[in-house]
């Protein structure tokens, strides 16, 4: 009976390991935050290893690995965030604040800046504005 439980645990862990291997290489490099996603996928592999260790009867190793696996994932993610991610993507550090368009005293730069095109700078001040007049026929 124990043999069947052990082999079931080993086969479950083998399936999980194959799923995580497929996920690890099938993620596209153009995906946003792909390194964090891959660290997340390796978490599945870690748990599969713990299940396999329990299936093999190595309970002490399973307990040790259960404790140290999150530390490894956090260390890699923290290092990536502190150096590569924050330096290569500087927009991550700045916080975008949504302007309040309903407030009559706030005139967002992007909204009114888009009214002027590049060509409008070359024109004279008189050409920028056109005055429409009504033609009144006095004969009517």
């Amino acid at each position, binding site marked *: 009976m124990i*043999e*069947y439980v*052990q*082999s*079931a645990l*080993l*086969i479950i*862990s*083998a*399936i999980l*390991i*194959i799923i*995580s*291997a*497929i996920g*690890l*290489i099938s993620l596209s*490099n153009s995906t946003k935050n792909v*390194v964090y996603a*891959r*660290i997340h996928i*390796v978490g599945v*592999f*870690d748990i599969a*290893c713990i299940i*396999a*260790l329990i*299936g*093999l009867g*190595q309970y002490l*190793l399973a307990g*040790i*690995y259960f404790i*140290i696996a999150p*530390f*490894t994932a956090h*260390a*890699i*993610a*923290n*290092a*990536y965030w*502190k*150096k*590569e991610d924050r330096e290569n993507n500087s927009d991550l550090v700045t916080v975008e604040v949504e302007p309040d368009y309903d407030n009559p005293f706030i005139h967002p730069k992007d909204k009114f800046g888009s009214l002027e095109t590049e060509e409008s700078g070359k024109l004279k001040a008189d050409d920028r504005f056109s005055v429409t007049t009504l033609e009144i026929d006095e004969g009517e």
Partner: protein
Amino acid sequence: MDILFIAKFILVIALIIMMLAALRASAYKSTSMGLLGSSVVVVAFAMLLLVGGDIYDLGFFKDISLALILFGFIGTVAFAAVLGGDDK
């Protein structure tokens, strides 16, 4: 054939596939991906040693795999600490 024996071999095949996938992942452009891939390869190799030691009934494989898991963890965390640098 014993079902436990077959399950162990299936696990060995899965671990080899994972090692190859981790090697491919470690070749991606980010340094952190290399760190991640190498840590996965170390753990997968430790697991392979454990399963191999279980199949062929060799005792010292457990000690080697325990050392690999522990020192792999220490090396990964140390490299990550150096890569991250000091807090600004």
